[in-house]
């Protein structure tokens, strides 16, 4: 899969203070994939996501579409990685459309009140995709948790970057919204984007991801299609749990069941 890999990391390490948070991680991810990044708390998932986007200094080499990340300007990085932080916080009650339009900032659209036709189209596409067109004039702070997560999704979709990195996009959402968000991310991947999602929900990871990356103590310990990457042995060793496994509608069903 390295032939058409859009995102390649080799020997990636990150120190936070004296602590080694990411330890020699190498991976190659092609486009049109939904990748789930899982692991216990403190395994380094968020750090890996940030390092991949170039949001924190790291050792090693990251290539995006063949270009070394370190050779790219901040602006150019922002065009290639759409990054969705945890929590979907917006500090001011801005109208939804202006928040989504911030996704065009890396493309030079600094003022949401004066978008070019091209940028306005991208914003409209993203809002349609995330199903927030009807919220256009509402203030984001007045929206429900589910609506806000869709707005946050629309904002990263508006970047129209080849790689979308999302940190726990389904946290604190009810089951319906969790599925909704993952269906939209799945569709985004099918449209040609590499989507990497950090999640604690192993069931959703197994159900929706093409590739699962399992992290433990700063290392990548298992990767591949869900059934293999999330094997019973990995579950026991990394997560210290047993799982219930089944098949349903030709997808793997995985339910955390008991401690080991």
């Amino acid at each position: 899969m390295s032939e058409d890999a859009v995102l390649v990391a080799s020997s990636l390490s990150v120190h936070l203070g004296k602590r080694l948070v990411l330890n020699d991680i190498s991976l190659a991810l092609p486009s049109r994939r939904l990748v789930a990044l899982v692991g216990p708390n403190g395994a380094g998932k968020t750090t890996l996501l940030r390092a991949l986007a170039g949001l924190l200094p790291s050792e090693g080499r990251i290539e995006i579409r063949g270009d070394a990340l370190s050779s790219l300007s901040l602006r150019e990085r922002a065009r290639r990685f759409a990054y969705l932080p945890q929590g979907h916080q917006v500090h001011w009650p801005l109208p939804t459309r202006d928040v989504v339009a911030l996704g065009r900032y890396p493309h030079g659209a600094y003022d949401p009140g004066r978008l070019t036709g091209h940028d306005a189209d991208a914003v409209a596409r993203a809002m349609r995709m995330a199903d927030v067109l009807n919220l256009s004039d509402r203030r984001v702070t007045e929206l429900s948790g589910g609506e806000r997560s869709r707005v946050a999704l629309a904002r990263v979709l508006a970047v129209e970057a080849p790689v979308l990195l999302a940190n726990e996009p389904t946290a604190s959402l009810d089951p319906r919204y969790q599925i909704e968000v993952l269906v939209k991310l799945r569709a985004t991947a099918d449209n040609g984007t590499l989507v990497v999602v950090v999640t604690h929900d192993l069931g959703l990871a197994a159900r929706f991801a093409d590739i699962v990356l399992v992290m433990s103590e700063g290392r990548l310990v298992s990767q591949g299609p869900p059934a293999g990457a999330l094997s019973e042995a990995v579950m026991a060793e990394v997560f210290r749990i047993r799982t219930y496994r089944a098949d349903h509608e030709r997808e793997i069903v995985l339910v955390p069941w008991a401690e080991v």
Partner: protein
Amino acid sequence: MVIAPVAGRQRAIVTLALCAGVAALTLVSLGIGPVALSPATILHVLLGGGGDVQRIIVLEIRLPRAILAIAIGGILGLSGAALQGLVRNPLASPSLFGAPQAAAFGAVLLIALGWADIHSFALPVAAILAAFTSVFVLLVIAGRDTSLLILILAGLAISALAGAATSLTMNLSSNPFAALEIAFWLLGSLEDRSFRHVALALPFIAAGAVALMSQRHAFRTLSLGEEAALSLGVNVGRLRLWTILGVALGIGGAVAVAGAIGFIGLVAPHLMRPLIGYDPSRLLVPSALTGAVLLLAADIAVRVIPSTSDIKVGVLTALIGVPFFLYLIVRERRALGGGVA
């Protein structure tokens, strides 16, 4: 509560109205004083007419005062809006962060040491350096996750420290008249300012305004938090530095000629939010204009209010600003009680 977002047209109307307000209050400011002049006379003088006495009164006595009120009010409003955008908090303002107090200390120290006469720019430069240090230290203490509680506590500590240092300097000053003069100057006033003061303050205020406006669009991205802003290609570290620099240049320049005039930076953005919306980038210019209107009005008020001795304009802005601050605290009580920013 569903409030429709503010349309661009309304923002333009509000901005134009504020410009008209600045112009009208400038005319009033130029007309008011021991010799009352009509707006027609003032316009005549401004256009090059009028008698010698009228020309001296308007151009040499009152015009510098009005220009300083506009420039200082403007930079205070702009600084307040920029700081609120930077820390994503409506309670941020230069005076709550101790910037004017620190600037005053820098200036007072220079006066007490007798270095103020070495060069005319020594005073504003000392004030600017002190203001820069105070805001820088504050943001370092507060760290990346700028919680409201830490910011306000750190600001309180820095104001108190700067105030104590100023008092100590006056305490140790050998000349009691100099100490008294400093004490009055600290209260903040635009009285008896000449074009020399304008020339002293204006370059720094203008530079501060340019520094803040150069970052205007980046404040909007900070609405999503620092990590998201960074991921959108905004150099957040540089944004912080330019903001601190802009506030320090502006506040330092203002304090050097007019003393500490507080709370305009806190109040101006709040007055604009219902009319302009919450977008921190769009608030900058209207907040600056509101600051100019407020300080012009306050400076007119201190001349109109009958009293045996002069009321200092800084005292008036604090008298109006502090209750407003209390009102904001009451309004934001729930968020404050939760300890979240």
